[in-house]
Each structure stands twice: as C-alpha cells, then as structure tokens.
C-alpha cells in the first residue's frame, strides 16, 4: 500500500523540477483582439507569449470562434478579454474550454460610457460603449488591471518595469494628443466616420465624431440615415470624413462626393494594422489616428 502511494506520488516529485524549468519559458496568454494583445506584450515583455484571437485588420464584432480557438483558450494561463459587451464570445469560449477562472476583464476599472445610440440595432451585448481603449487615461487603467492579472498568474515574474515604461509612454501620448487638438480651431473639431468607435476619444479630447451607421457596423444603412448624415455635414460644415479600416468604403465615398467634405485617411479603431502597416501597436495606432485627424481638419 505504502509502496503504491510512493509510486503514485513519484510523478508529482518529478513535476517539481519540470515546473521550475517551465517558468523560464514564456507564459502563454490569449487576448481576444489585437489591441489587447499589444498591451499584454508591452506589460509582459519577454516573459509572456501572447496571441490575439482576432488578428490585425479583422473585425471583432463579427468574429466566430473555431474549435482550434477553444484549444488556444484551454492552453493559455491567462485569457484577456475587453469586456463592456465587446467580446462576449470570448468569455463563452474560455468558459467552454475550462478557462473560466483564468479570464481577466481588461476594462474592469474603466468608467464606462453609454453607447452613442443604443436604441438603434447593433451587435454589442450591452448598451455600454466598449471601445474604452480609445482614451489614454483609460488605457492606464487597462494596464493596471492586466499587470495585476499577470502577476497573479505568474507570481515569480516581474511586471513592474514593463508597466511603468508603458505608463510613461501613455502619459506622453496623452499630452501630445491634447496639444494636437488644441491647435485646431474649435469650429473644425468634428469629423464623420463610418464606425462610431471613438466615443471615449471624443469625451476625453473634445473632438466630435458622427457616424452614419450607429455604434456597430452590423445594420444595413437606410436612405434616411444617409440623408440625415449628408444634411448634417452640409449644415454644420463638417470639414472631414474618415473611412474606417473595417467597413465598406463605398458609402463613405458617396457621402464625401455629396458634401464636398475632405476624405481623411484610415483611422484604426477596433484593430491594429499588420506589422508593416501604419498602426502595428497601440501607441502607433493612437499617434497615427491623431496625425490623420489633425491633417484632415487643419484649415
């Protein structure tokens, strides 16, 4: 009997050195989309191997997980979701993969805004606006939450250095955006973009974003929606319209043609660009966006 117990315990003993050597290998983290993955990489550095389920350039609103994705969730030590109704499929996926207690909701400590027009048909699971990462102060809160979760999942790791460096970069970004917006004449601080994902950016930095399609890109636009936005651009003399990286650009070109508004470049809101694009990281994305906005809005 005793012998048998010793035999059963043997693998456990063997497992101890195995585990010690494992901690040198990077910890596997799964994020729901590319922006979260970038934040985890910034905070975790070499110590984490992070993967995004919805990669650069893809649309997280319409994502449908595959069985392989459930495998990734099961293999991850930490699953990072945005929350606020942005990626409910990810929480279901992680729960189904048995990773329910390893989920961290990155937007947990963010003061949530209501979605711009929650009464219109859209795809988000709650009536909150989930795009909280579009403001640098909110991103500071994301960093705090993600750092705490990483430290809990990997107590031996040191996540203070990565987090501190990133927070300093966020502060610099925040200051730069405020300077750039302040340089614009107040009557030119408004744009139209296909996807209303900039609610937090608008609230934080004082630019107005109008969308022809409501908060998500799910519903087909009606002639009335389009007529309203065109009339609004004409009447309020809105200087610029922006094509978003995930939505049908033909509609936007139509609006620009009918109003004479300037067509701005691509704004990145819900996903990063591929590595060779203009917005491969969160910081690059925010700097790219403010550069595009100020270029199009400059008198």
């Amino acid at each position, binding site marked *: 009997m005793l012998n048998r117990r010793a035999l059963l315990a043997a693998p456990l003993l063997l497992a101890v050195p195995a585990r010690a050597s494992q901690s040198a290998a990077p910890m596997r983290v799964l994020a729901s989309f590319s922006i979260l993955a970038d934040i985890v990489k910034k905070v975790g550095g070499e110590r984490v191997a992070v993967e995004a389920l919805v990669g650069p350039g*893809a*649309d997280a609103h319409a*994502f449908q997980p595959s069985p392989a994705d459930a495998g990734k969730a099961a293999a991850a030590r930490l699953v990072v979701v945005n929350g606020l109704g942005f990626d409910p499929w990810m929480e279901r996926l992680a729960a189904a993969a048995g990773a329910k207690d390893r989920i961290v909701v990155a937007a947990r400590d963010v003061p949530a805004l209501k979605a711009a027009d929650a009464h219109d048909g859209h795809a988000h699971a709650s009536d909150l606006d989930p795009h909280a990462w579009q403001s640098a102060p909110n991103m500071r809160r994301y960093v705090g939450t993600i750092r705490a979760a990483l430290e809990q999942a990997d107590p031996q790791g040191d996540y203070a250095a990565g987090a501190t460096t990133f927070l300093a970069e966020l502060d610099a970004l925040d200051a730069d955006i405020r300077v750039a917006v302040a340089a614009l004449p107040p009557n030119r601080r408004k744009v139209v973009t296909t996807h209303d994902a900039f609610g937090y950016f608008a609230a934080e930095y004082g630019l107005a974003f109008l969308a022809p399609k409501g908060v998500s*890109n799910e519903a087909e636009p*009606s002639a*009335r929606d389009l007529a309203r936005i*065109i009339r609004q651009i004409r009447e309020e003399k809105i200087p610029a319209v922006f094509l978003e990286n995930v939505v049908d650009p033909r*509609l936007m*070109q*139509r609006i620009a043609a009918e109003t004479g508004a300037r067509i701005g470049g691509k704004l990145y809101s819900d996903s990063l660009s591929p590595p060779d694009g203009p917005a491969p990281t969160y910081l690059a994305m925010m700097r790219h966006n403010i550069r595009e906005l100020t270029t199009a809005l400059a008198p």
Partner: protein
Amino acid sequence: MSLDLLSAFAEFGFMRRALAGCLALSLAGAPIGTFLLLRRMSLVGDALAHAILPGAALGYLAAGLSLGAMTLGGLIAGFVVALLAGLVARATSLREDASLAAFYLLSLALGVVIISTRGSNVDLLRVLFGSVLALDDPTLTLLAGVASLTLLVFALIYRPLALETADPGFLASVSRSGGPAHLVFMALLVLNLVAGFHALGTLLSVGLMILPAATARLWTRSVGAMMALAAALGFASSLAGLALSYAQGWPTGPAIILCAGVVYALSLAFGRAGGLAARA
C-alpha cells in the same frame, strides 16, 4: 409626402443614383425573370447568385475592392457552375436542378473557405455585397452597360428562346438554335447576377428579377406584356422602396423587395390571369 420625396431626389445624389441603378436592374431583370419563370427555373437565379461568391471573393483578394476583378471573378465562377451543371445533366442520370444544387452549394462552401483563410475577416462578406445607396460612377456604368447588352441580346435570342420554352420538341425539329439560346440565356443571367451582386447585393438583384415577373404572370398570359409589366413593376417597387427607406428608415434593399412583395400578394388575390379572385 410626395413633395418631400421629390425634394429628396432633388437634394441627394445617392437617391437619384439608387433609382437609376434600380431602373437598369428592373429593365434587364424583367425579361430574364419572365423566362426563368416560364422555364420553371425561378430558383436557379438564387442558386447561381450564391455560386458567384468564390469568384468575387478571389477577385477581391487578388485586386482589392476593384470592380473589374470582382466582376471577372464572379462571371467565371457563375459560368463554370452553370456549365458544369448543364454538362452533368447531359452526361449522367442527374437532372439539371440536382446538379446545379450540388455545384452551387460546393461553390458557396468554397467561397466561405476562401474568405475565412484571410484571417478571420468575416467583414469581407459585407464588402462583397454592395449597397444600393453607395453606387459610384463605375458601378452605375456597369449596371447600365449590362442592362443595355441584356436587352440587345434578348432581342436576338427572343424567338428561339420563346419557342424552346413553349415547345422544345417543335423547335428541335426545325432548328438547332435551342441549345445555344439556352446557353446565351444562362450567360445573361450570370452577367446580371454578377452586376447586381456587388452593386446591390444578392437579395435585391434576384428579387428584382423574380418578384415582378411572378406578379406580371398573374395579370397577363402574353410574354411580351409580361416583360413590359415586370419592368414597370420592378421600377415602381424600387421607387416605393426607396421612398420607404427614406421616410421610415428601413434598410433600402429589403424595403424594395418588400414593396415588390406587397404587389405580388395583392396580385395573388386579384390578378386577372390566374389570381384567386379570377379563379373563384
């Protein structure tokens, strides 16, 4: 209301463009829909519209949001499926409807696989189906060109096609033009579906073919009158649907199809040539 609507067309270019696009689609869709109906092929349009997907997707992946590449890809996919279905029907014991169903399902599945290999970019589907509210110059030119070509070619194949539809045995005994006429007809169908596909979306392009033709059939037995009535009904439904979309905020494509559906339902009840009231 009517004045308000008139001013809407005067005020907004996209309303005029949508109407022009729908006019082209109604004109070309009427003869095609009429003959689909008479040849008992009403569901073929829908099947082929789905078969176009992998071609349009490949065109998009190769050349981006390019009208030419997506049109070419869609045309090739549509022709391949239509021809293969016809070949299989002649060479094996399967009927054409069964082989067409098989090939369009395969084609559709292939299209979804092609789209999903590009990361998880589900949004591509939305790019492939255009919006009637966003017709730009090249798309309008394509629609008008396809409609003109369709009407011209129809004038050429009308006699053999009508004869083959009514009495294929008789046509085969006096002429060999039945087979070619059918092929040209299928080519026109694919051409119109491809043009409608990324200009307006599948629902709208197939809907504007079938519903007005079915409605017209309930009022007249003459093929020529059916085609004329179907074109007029298609255009009237487009106008009403656009107006509804403008006044009530309904999505435009479905609003147009629903308007055509209302006329269809009324005609089912009151149509002089085979409606419920006429039969009672």
